[in-house]
């Protein structure tokens, strides 16, 4: 049984002019425990909506979403919210650290919604998690005094502190330089595999996506499996990849074009 299983899921919203906007169309995907899955796609293709549905922040318009075999439609709002806190850890592009709170307080925050030992031992658990992401000496530092990479590491510690079954990372390296982004992904991969948590990454960055065991491309609300080669090239039904830093990658990502140069990984 898969941990998360979407079957023919759609998500539509009604626009102010009464037209329907179909964000997701018949998405079917499953994620097993401990798996690393990546979804690539350009802006506005519904990546975040898919992530929000997976993370129980949003609900499908039609289709079925099974969480450990249980249709989420059967869960009450409160149960969904509690399961979101317990089973999912979110890592955002802009880190979304709580302002005015130290690194330790940020990592402690999710544990305020936990119960039992996790709640009462929250400070110790948060401290341990910060040590684990290499920030044991920065626990009392405010987010604005941390570098981008450090902030994202705090966010990762915060996402993992409740021991989630699934980590949902929305452009986790989007606000970081290549080197820092690589280090953050190393950390995310390492901790996810250590804790046995599934990792679903949404990204523009094909290098980041290539780290995943399975990759998908989302275009116009349709999810298509692809295959990326992290070392040199990537192949599949996504036709192109460029190596420049001009932003052309995003534009061309979903368009037919020439094959990549041999060294062609994105920066």
């Amino acid at each position, binding site marked *: 049984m898969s941990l998360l299983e979407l079957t023919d899921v759609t998500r539509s919203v009604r626009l102010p002019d009464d037209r329907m906007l179909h964000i997701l169309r018949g998405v079917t995907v499953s994620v097993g425990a401990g798996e690393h899955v990546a979804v690539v796609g350009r802006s506005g293709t519904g990546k975040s909506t898919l992530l929000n549905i997976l993370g129980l922040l949003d609900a499908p318009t039609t289709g079925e979403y099974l969480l450990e075999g249980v249709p989420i439609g059967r869960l009450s709002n409160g149960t969904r919210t509690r399961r979101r806190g317990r089973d999912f850890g979110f890592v955002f592009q802009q880190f979304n650290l709580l*302002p005015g709170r130290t690194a330790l307080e940020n990592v402690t*925050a999710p544990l305020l*919604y936990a119960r039992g030992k996790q709640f009462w031992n929250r400070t110790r658990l948060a401290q341990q998690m910060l040590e684990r992401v290499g920030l044991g000496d920065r626990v009392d530092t405010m987010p604005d005094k941390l570098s981008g990479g450090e902030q994202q590491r705090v966010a990762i510690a915060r996402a993992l502190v409740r021991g989630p079954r699934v980590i949902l990372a929305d452009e986790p390296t989007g606000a970081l330089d290549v080197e820092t982004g690589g280090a953050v992904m190393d950390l995310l991969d390492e901790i996810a595999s250590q804790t046995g948590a599934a990792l679903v990454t949404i990204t523009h960055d094909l290098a980041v996506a290539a780290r995943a065991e399975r990759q998908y491309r989302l275009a116009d609300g349709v999810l298509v499996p692809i295959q990326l080669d992290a070392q040199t090239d990537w192949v599949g039904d996504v036709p192109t990849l460029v190596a420049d830093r001009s932003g052309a990658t995003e534009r061309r990502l979903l368009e037919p074009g020439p094959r990549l140069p041999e060294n062609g990984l994105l920066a």
Partner: protein
Amino acid sequence: MTGIVGAIVEAWDELRIHKLRVLLALIGVACAVTAITSVTAVIAMLKQATQEQNDKQSGRQVTLMVSAYPMDQSAATPTTWDDAFTNLLDRYSITYASRDEWIQAPVRLPDGKRSVQVRTVDVDLGTIDRIVPAEGRWFAEVDESAYAPTLVVNKAFLTALGLPDLSTHPTVEVGDQAPVTASIIGVLNDDWPGADPAVMVLYDQYHRWIGDDGSGIRSGGAAPAAGTAAANMAMQVPTVYLWVPADQVHALKRQIAQDMQAATPGWQVDVQGNNHGDGGLGRATTYAGIGIGGLALLLGGLGLVNIALVTVRYRIREIGIRRSFGATSGRVFFGVLLESVVATFVAGLVGVTLAVAIIKNIPVDTLFGGGIQDMPPFPVSAAVIGMLCATAVGALAGVIPASVAVRVKVIDAIRY
């Protein structure tokens, strides 16, 4: 359990982090609570002061005054009035009661013998009328059986004696033909500036040692000639004061009037209570105080709502992030509400403390024109009202931003 503790911890953290904002928001509430608490306390003290003033003038609530007048010149002086008084106390189990008789008696002062106003009373009058001597003491039971009369005098009397105080344990001779030496044990303030010398003495002592007419006859003096003013003065009975429970006043009034009437044939007995109500002024003061305090609190609360609403807008993203941690809408609502309540509770504490400091450090009792005998401690009711108002304002002011917070769309909030 963890949910409640978690919400409180969260609210407290929020307040700790936004100290300046909270401080600004709460200055108004704290001031309002100080105002409402102080006003409530002052009103309580004012009521107490007024009550005590009334008690001093007409006895405690409710004191029945029993008086009797001869219906015509032929009516004989009642001989059983004192016995009837004693029976009354037994029959109705009245704890505090006093007779009160106003007499003129000759007293030997340094400038010669003078007729001085003498009030003969019982020990309990001190309690009923809240009499507190400026110096020395009021009568005690032991004085009833003393071998010489004891006196409580006014300051004018002491001045007439040429004495500054009671340090010399002064005595004075009372009576005409056979004066009796009486010890002065207490001094009262004059009722008004330039008051005449006056003396209080225990009723039984006076009649035992000095006599109804002030002659000192009981100690060997001669009776005044019939038809003289002194003799006519005997045509009176002491007024009787009875401190009775308020809920029994009506029944007791009727029965006591009947009982005392039986003891005084040919006399008219009147029984009056002093329970005339505290008048409209007391109520008006209370309402004015509540009105002022309520208005102050309303303004403080509006300031709080204003700042809380702005804060929620500012915190939309944070609320979204917390929702992603598993914060239910109930928890978000409760959290924002609790923040407001915790904040105003703290503001309430500050306000009440300020009010206590203010009330304790200004001479409230002298402002009310004289010392308050039973100076009420800072009224607990005022502190409780202050705290309740603060918390209620916090809850009311928190509901609006809390509702806004719950309506925050998580997805939009995170991307905000």
